[in-house]
């Protein structure tokens, strides 16, 4: 059984963020990805496994090689996680502004 992973925990790791950055423009094989890092190959494989388990990466079979590429949809969710917080405050501040524009001091 695959462990369900937290996306935000996954991207908290600097190596995993570096992998995502690397794959931002192209799909790559595990070997090609690993050649960009000084860490041992199994370590990179572990990172790829975690990123795949939480849907940030997708695997694609091309001939004998497995290529990894970004799952754009999931990446968007991660990139947007601050937006609801910003929107919450924006809505409150909009309301504040509306209320105060029609504010009349009590006698």
């Amino acid at each position, binding site marked *: 059984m695959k462990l369900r992973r937290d996306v*935000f925990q996954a991207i908290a790791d600097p190596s995993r963020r570096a992998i995502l950055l690397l794959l931002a423009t192209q799909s790559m094989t595990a070997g090609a990805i690993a050649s960009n890092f000084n860490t041992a190959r199994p370590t990179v494989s572990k990172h790829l496994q975690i990123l795949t388990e939480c849907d940030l990466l997708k695997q694609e079979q091309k001939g004998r090689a497995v290529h990894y590429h970004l799952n754009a949809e999931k990446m968007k969710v991660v990139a*947007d*996680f*601050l*937006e*609801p*917080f*910003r*929107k*919450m*405050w*924006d809505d*409150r*501040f909009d*309301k*504040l*502004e509306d*209320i*105060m*524009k029609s*504010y009349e001091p009590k006698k």
Partner: protein
Amino acid sequence: MERKSKITAENGKQEITITRAFDLPVELLFKAYIDAEIVEQWMGTKVLKLESKRHGCYQFETTDPMGNKHGFNGTIHEFEPNQKITRTFEMEGSNFPVQLEFLSFEKQSESTSKLTMHVIYKSVEVRDNVLKLPFAQGINMAHNRLEEILFKQIK
């Protein structure tokens, strides 16, 4: 003039900054923070207590759509009319530690002003989790809606 609220949350830091420009004189913006009735309206909360002064404290109570009550409270450390409020903020009954908020109110012109909210959290992890709260709730709400729709179809 950029009127949207902006959030600065740098990676790996235990703080955030929220800024917002208002089409309001700074006195009115400040008033919206110290008048209990007005706070109730724009924050969408019940104000149980609001002592806007140094060493004063406040207590809010919000009822969520399910009818559960959530308490918030804090202490005011610095209070300078139309300039700044420094206060703590605590979500009661949650595991989130107290946060420290520096609110600064700036006059931009006779009729415009700017608010800067600088919030310090106990750790980077706490900050990230607080920022994700509305996001997580949004996802849960979407799930609940989905369940409702599916449930209706089954019936």
